[in-house]
Structures are given as structure tokens and as C-alpha cells.
């Protein structure tokens, strides 16, 4: 029940807000949204408390028939890989509601409602154990995000909204074919866990692997299909950017762990060089691209791509350090990138410019805010004792274990990360006050202080004491690694037995 509640409480609240809210009762709408977001967060907390980290099995499982004709089931559950993303999503939604408090003035109920809907749908993606259910949630998240970017976005919002929608849809339609193919290969089941056990020949695995790659690499996004992200980030309203960076990108990375690796392990091993290469290009090249950006949001967007490159790199070097590192990086990036976009939002709300050149010397007028921003910038470049450090360090260690040079190249990202983050910080915050806009800036108010402080605590906590996070993942990660280490190629057919030709389908029948 807990997972259903986590999914449907925000969705129902979002629908109520959409139905009842009007712009002449903005205050009530805001409070209602906040209460809904807090309640939705509260119902995810028992997941953390009740999670048994000594097993890799699915927990909080719900399993009901949904569409009997295709044997689709309403099957939910979380393991160590997905568990943390449920409360993380709900937490970020709370932050987004607070961040929008006075900033969003038109169609407030639609804005808040869309984010609540989005929150429920994304939790659905993380907890779905049925292929079709996953797909429905995965696709449905596009709709509120499309509206959010298009209605409350910047000047090129329409272009960005379309690009976002069509890019993602293109990838996921191929995934749909893969899901249907698996449905028939497994003898009529959409059960993801059954698919994990399904033996498949290498050629099939390769096709499936690339179909999933199409969907998830766009979502992550990996170089070279990342181009929608800077557009979407720049044009989206602050809340949209926060959710996009903090949660939505993780849907893709999560998909690799839930689908690509366990369903097509042999193809994953076979093609790991490709993913590693794409990730490294992402980490190194996109890091350099970030360095030359003039627009703060674009800079952080590129830095997101580079950080997500670490995640995929960690997954495809097939050792425990790398994979847990990737997962930790996903969570920490959720906090840090969210915080970075919020900081930009704070400035943008006051000056209405995202150009780095429009600022300078902000620290003189907004000291409290500058302190927060410094902390998050440090986390973004992976300073020890912040959340950003843990994941990146684990992945770099893991890759060094895999191959020294791989580790060495990945480590250069720490330098470029520090370069673009700190250089931006220097240009925006340090130095003398450059213009009238900056001179009249007011420091953050209690609301902004609250939301930044919440994130800062999370970032610090995760940096200093990552154990609760890694403990939860441990069993599931080693289970997944063991699973992906075992070949799923069908056992060669015995020559004398014609009936054995059907053997690939048999394990699922059990």
C-alpha cells in the first residue's frame, strides 16, 4: 500500500488542485500544494525506516492484475537500487513548491498541480516492476513537463518543449517495441523480474540492448543525444529545471540498471566499450563545453551531463565500486544540481537575467546567499565532505581498478568540474559590484533560506556520512553484478532432441 500511496497521493492532490484552484485564491492554492507535497513526502518516509537492507529482494511489493488480456499487472516494489529515489522525488517536490511560492503568479494551481502529478508519476517509474506499467509512467511524465516548460518557460520555451518531448518520445518508442518483443519471448508476461531470468541469444540481446539504449541514453542524457537538455534547462522555469536535473535524468540511468544490464547482460558486456566511450566523451568533452558557457543555466546543464556521464561510466565498468558509485552519484547529483538551479533561480527572480556577464560582486549585497552558493558550487566540483565527492570518487576508483588510464581520464573531469564551477562563481559573486542591478539586490528571505538550508543539510549529510545510502544499495548492487556476470545465452541445444528447440521459453514457465 505504501508505494501506491506514494504514487497516488500526489497525483490525486495534483488533480484536485487542477480542478479546484483559481488564480484569485492564490494563497489557498499555495498552502494546499505545500501541504500536499509535505504529506506526499511524509508517506514515503516509512519506506526508509521499513527497508530491510539485508536482502536484494523486492520489498513493499504490490501485485494485482491490471489488463488481463495482455497479462499486464499492477506490480510495484522497490529494492536497494530504487528505494532512495522515492523519498528523493517527494523531497524535491517539496522544494519546488517552496521555490515557486512568490515567483509563480499566473496559473498557480496548474503549476503546482503539474509538479505534484509529475512527482507521483516519477515515483511510479521507480517502483514499477511491470514492463508496461513502467512504460506508462515513463511516458506520462512527458506531459506535465511539456506543459511546465511551455507555459512558464523563457522566450524560446516552445522550441525547447517540443524538442524535449520529441527527443524523449523517439527513444522510448523503440523501447516499447523492445518491451513487446520481450513480452512474446517470455511467453506472455510483462514481469520485469521474469525477463531478468530469460535466456536470450546474443543477437537478440544486442537488439534489445540498443532499443533500451535509445530510450535511456536520451533521458540520461548521454553524448551525443544530449542536445535537448541545455535547451530544456535554459527555457524551463526554475522548478522545471530542478525536477529535470534532480529526478528526470535519473529515470534514464535507473532504466539501465533495471532493464539493459539484467535483461541483456551479455550484450551489455559486449558493448560496454561503447557506453564507456560515450560516457568518457560526455565527462571530458562536455566538461570543456561547460567552461565556455555565458549562460549560468546552460553551464549547470552541461555540468549535469558531465556528472551523469560518471553515472553511466560507473554502471558499465562492472564492479561494485563503480556501480554503487554511480548510484550514489545519482542521488547526490539530485541534491546538488537541484540546489545549483535553485541558486540560479534566486538570482534570476531578482535580476531576470541568466547571463554571467550581468552579475559580478553579488557577495557584497547578498552575503548569506553567496555562502550557500559557494557551498553548492563546491559540492558541484566534488569537494570532499560534500555529496558530490562520494559518488565521483567511488566511480574514479572503480574505473582505475578496471583500467588505470580509464581512471586517469575520468579524474580529469574533477579538474574541469572545478574549473567551470569556480570560474562561474568567481565571475558572478566575487569582485566589485559591477552594475546597478547587483547593487540593489536584496539578500534571501526566510523562505529561500529555508529551501537552500534543507538542501545544504542533505548535501552535507550525504558527504560526511554516506553509509545509510550505500548500506541500502549494497545487497542489491552485488546481486545485480552477480546477475550481470552470469551469461544468459541459451545453453546449446542437444542435437538429438527436437523438442528441446523450445527450451529458451521454459525457464519462465516455472
Amino acid at each position, binding site marked *: 500500500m505504501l508505494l501506491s500511496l506514494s504514487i497516488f497521493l500526489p497525483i490525486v492532490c495534483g488533480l484536485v488542485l487542477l480542478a479546484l484552484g483559481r488564480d484569485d485564491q492564490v494563497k489557498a492554492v499555495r498552502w494546499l500544494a505545500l501541504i500536499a507535497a509535505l504529506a506526499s513526502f511524509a508517506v514515503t518516509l516509512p519506506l526508509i525506516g521499513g527497508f530491510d537492507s539485508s536482502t536484494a529482494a523486492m520489498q513493499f511489493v504490490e501485485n494485482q492484475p491490471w489488463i488481463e488480456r495482455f497479462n499486464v499487472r499492477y506490480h510495484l516494489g522497490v529494492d536497494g537500487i530504487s528505494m532512495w529515489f522515492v523519498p528523493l522525488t517527494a523531497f524535491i517536490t517539496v522544494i519546488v513548491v517552496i521555490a515557486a511560492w512568490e515567483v509563480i503568479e499566473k496559473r498557480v494551481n496548474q503549476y503546482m498541480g503539474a509538479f505534484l502529478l509529475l512527482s507521483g508519476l516519477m515515483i511510479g517509474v521507480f517502483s514499477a516492476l511491470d514492463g508496461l506499467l513502467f512504460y506508462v509512467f515513463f511516458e506520462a511524465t*512527458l506531459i506535465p513537463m*511539456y506543459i511546465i516548460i*511551455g507555459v512558464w518557460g523563457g522566450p524560446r520555451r516552445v522550441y525547447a518543449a*517540443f524538442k524535449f518531448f520529441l527527443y524523449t518520445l523517439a527513444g522510448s518508442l523503440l523501447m516499447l*517495441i523492445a518491451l513487446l518483443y520481450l513480452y512474446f519471448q517470455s511467453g506472455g508476461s510483462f514481469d520485469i523480474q521474469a525477463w531478468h531470468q530469460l535466456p536470450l541469444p546474443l543477437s537478440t540481446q544486442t537488439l534489445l540492448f540498443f532499443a533500451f539504449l535509445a530510450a535511456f541514453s536520451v533521458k540520461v542524457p548521454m553524448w551525443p543525444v544530449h542536445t535537448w537538455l541545455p535547451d530544456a534547462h535554459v527555457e524551463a522555469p526554475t522548478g522545471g529545471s530542478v525536477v529535470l536535473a534532480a529526478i528526470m535524468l535519473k529515470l534514464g540511468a535507473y532504466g539501465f540498471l533495471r532493464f539493459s544490464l539484467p535483461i541483456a547482460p551479455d550484450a551489455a558486456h559486449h558493448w560496454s566499450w561503447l557506453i564507456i566511450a560515450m560516457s568518457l566523451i560526455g565527462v571530458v568533452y562536455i566538461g570543456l563545453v561547460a567552461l565556455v558557457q555565458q549562460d549560468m543555466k546552460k553551464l549547470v546543464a552541461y555540468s549535469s551531463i558531465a556528472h551523469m556521464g560518471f553515472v553511466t561510466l560507473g554502471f558499465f565498468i562492472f564492479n561494485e565500486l563503480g556501480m554503487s558509485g554511480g548510484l550514489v552519484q545519482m542521488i547526490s547529483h539530485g541534491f546538488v544540481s537541484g540546489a545549483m538551479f535553485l541558486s540560479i533561480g534566486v538570482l534570476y527572480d531578482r535580476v531576470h537575467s541568466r547571463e554571467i556577464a550581468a552579475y559580478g560582486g553579488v557577495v557584497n549585497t547578498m552575503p548569506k546567499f553567496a555562502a550557500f552558493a559557494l557551498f553548492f558550487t563546491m559540492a558541484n566540483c566534488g569537494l570532499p565532505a560534500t555529496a558530490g565527492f562520494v559518488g565521483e570518487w567511488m566511480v574514479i576508483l572503480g574505473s582505475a581498478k578496471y583500467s588505470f588510464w580509464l581512471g586517469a581520464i575520468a579524474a580529469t573531469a574533477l579538474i574541469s568540474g572545478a574549473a567551470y564551477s569556480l570560474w562561474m562563481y568567481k565571475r558572478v559573486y566575487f569582485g566589485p559590484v559591477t552594475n546597478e542591478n547587483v547593487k540593489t539586490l536584496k539578500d534571501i528571505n526566510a523562505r529561500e533560506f529555508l529551501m537552500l538550508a534543507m538542501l545544504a543539510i542533505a548535501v552535507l549529510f550525504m558527504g560526511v556520512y554516506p553509509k545509510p545510502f550505500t548500506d541500502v544499495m549494497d545487497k542489491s548492487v552485488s546481486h545485480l553484478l552477480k546477475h550481470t556476470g552470469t551469461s544468459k545465452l541459451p545453453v546449446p541445444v542437444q542435437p538429438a532432441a527436437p523438442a528441446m528447440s523450445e527450451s529458451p521459453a521454459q525457464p519462465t514457465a516455472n
Partner: protein
Amino acid sequence: MNNMNWLAVYPEIILLAMTCVVAMVDLWVTDPQRRPTYWLTQLTLVVVGAMHLGYFQEGATVYAMQGMVVADPMGHLLAFFACIATIVTLVYARPYVASREMLKGELFTLTLFSMLGVSVMVSANNFLVVYLGLELMSLSLYALVALRRDNANATEAAMKYFVLGALASGFLLYGLSMMYGATGSLSIPRVFEVISLGEANKSVLVFGVVFVVAGLAFKLGAAPFHMWVPDVYHGAPTATTLLIGAAPKLAAFAITIRLLVEGMIGLAVDWQQMLIVLAIASLLVGNLAAIAQTNLKRMLAYSTIAQMGFMLLGLASGVVNDNTLSAANAYSSAMFYAVIYVMTTLGSFGMILLLSRQGHEAEEIKDMAGLAKRSPWYAAVMTIFMLSLAGIPPTAGFYAKLSVLQALISTNNPLYLGLAIAAVLVSLIGAYYYLRVIKVMFFDEPTDSSPLGAPADVRVVMSLNGVAVLVFGLLPGGLMAWCAQAIVKTLAT
């Protein structure tokens, strides 16, 4: 098979009788709103629809009129949906036609006659009955398009529809006569027997099939026989467009099943190839041409072409390697697709009716601008329709596409797998222009700030329509099971 079985055709008899009654009653109606005629028509459709539903749930297959018609679950289910579609159409259409001096008795009589034609087609068991139903429906529709006879566009559309429609009927009739020549019978089961015995001359049969498929493709509006669709959809008064676009598509689907599957499944290899070509052409033409449209009705017309292409893919995947195991799955998926398509089309054209008012046709895409501000609820409902046409979950259109795709993939044949991939990639193009409508509604500022003037019954039915598309998107199981049940029982006899 050789008795009359009047009971099985009661719905049609009632429909015919009531059509005559409505035509008569209207002569004495003085109310300019034609309320007695309207309500009598709706009552008739409700009663007939309920009877069809009742018969469907009995699930029996009865041959009636000496084997000329067959009353089976598929026929009843499609007739039931056609009744619902017509009822909804009339609700949407009434205020529109009233404000355009088209609210005459003929509207109702012709609508009922076209419904009767649909009814006859869905339960035809004989080539001539198919043709009879088709002409009854088409002739009523030609007249309905021309109902506004002082409107140049409508007259042109009616002319075009009539000439091309007659040509298509000619094709179909020619093909059927070929089949008759080769098999010596007009009765569909007999034709099936002769073909499966392999006694008929194959080349004559194939020749006949080509013409039959061409005639059907015209009625479905599949490329390259699609030229009339955009012009007629655009030119006809929107109320009539809805009448053309909804129930007749179900009828066209039904006669495709009756003729190609029940009669000529033995020639499946031949007609499936043609259907595949038609499907691909329709998907491409429909989706690409729709991008360039600025008129919403034209855009939806091209989208119809593409949607029919998708449905044809379902029909084309029934027989693989001479194996009919997947037939029931394929045809029921196509049927589900057709039903969902009609449901969504009703809503999207209905929205044009809802937004138009005296002297203003809200048929350009830009007329939708800022609908989210003028009326968030109807903007949301229209969004559901557009997403459903684009096949995005959680709307009914997603499951329609899903069921066709699974039918293609279940064949486990590389050709069909390739078709499935092509179909999803082309539907990506489709997503663009559906999204554009959502964009116009949500992202643009309203150009027209007048309040929506639609009466309460239109609003309620429109809302129910939108909710239905969403609910069938969340819980599609029941409707899918109905379609599967109907097709399985029909194929079994």
C-alpha cells in the same frame, strides 16, 4: 440458415420503422428547434443501441433473412458503438446546425438512414447486402454533406464525395462481381468454402480482390485512395464531418472483416500485401501532410488517414506463413483500434463544434489559441484527445497502438517486426502536430475572449467523452476483452 429469424434483425426493423416515423412526425413539428424530432431520434438510437448490446451479451450467432445477414457478436458490438457514436454526434451537432439553418427534419431522417446502412453493413453475410448497406449509408451521407446547399464549400465537398464515392462503389462492385464469377456465389460463407477448396480460378480471384481492396481502401480513406478525405472533411459542415468520420469508419472496418476475412481469408497472402502497402502509404501521407495544415479539420482529416493506416497494419498481421493462429489477436486489435479511434474523433471534432458559435467556425488551429485560459477544463479534455490520437499513455489511444503493435510483433516475423518499428517511428512525426494543438491551447495567448456558448448537454457529453478516453486509458481491459470476444466468436462460425 434458410429461415427468416426475424428476431435477429429486430434492431434493424425497428430502426427502419422509426426512421419512417421520424420522417412523418417531422412534418407536423412546428417547433423551430425540432425538439420532438430530435428526442424521437435519440430515443430510437438508444433503444436500438441497447438491443444490440443485449444481443452482444447473449453472444449467439444467428443467420437471418435466409442467410443474407448474420447477427453475430461482432456485428452487434460494432452496431452498438455506431449507435453511441451517432447519439453523441447528434448531441454535439444540434446547437451547431440550429445556428446555421440546417436544423431540418431531413437531418434526422438521413442520419437514421445512414445508421441503418451501417447496421446492415456490419451484419451483412452476402455481397449484395454489403453493397446495399454501403449505398444506403453513402447516399445519406452525400445528401448530408450538401445539406447547406447555399454554401459553396459544402456543395463542392458533396460533389467530390459523391463522384469519388460512386467510383469506389463501382470498384467494389466490380471486384465482387469477379468473385461471383470465380466462385459462383454471392454468399460470403459459400465464397469462403469455394476458395478454401481451391476450385476457383486463382487469377480471377486475385483480380477481384484487388478491386475489392481498392473499394474498401477508399471507404476507409487509406492512401492512395485518400484524396477525398481532407476536402470532404474540410468542406462539409462540421456536424456532418463528424457523421462521416465516426460511425462509417466502424462500418468500413466491419465490411473489411466480412469481405476479406470471412469471405476471402484463403487469399490472405494477396490482400495482406496490399493492406501493408496501403498502410505504409497512409501512415506516411497522413502524418507528413498533417504537419503542413493550419486548418484543424484538415489536420484531423490527414490524421484520420494515418490512423486508418495504423489500423490496417493490425488487419494485415492476421495470417502469417499460412498460419491463422494469430488471426483473432490481430483482428481484435484492429477492432479495438477502430473503436478507440472513433471515440477520440468524436471528441476532437466535437470540440470544434463546441467552440464554434453563430457566425464563427472555430476550425482553424489558431482558433484554439489560449483555450487553457478561456476554459482550462476543455483545454484539458482536448489535450486528452490529442494525446490519445498521438498514442501517449495514459490515454486510450496508447492501448490502441499497443494492441496493434503487439499483434505485429506476435507474428515473430522480421517483416512485421520491421513494420512495427516503422509504424512507431512514423507516429513520432504524428506526435509533432498533435502536440502543436496542445501548444496552441496552452502556450499561446487567446485571440478570442468570448465565453464558450455551448449548452449544458454538449458540455456534459463532451466531458464524459474526455473522461471516457482517459478511463479506457487507465483500465482498457474490459473493452479489449469485448473486442476479443466478438472477434473470436465471429471467426469461430
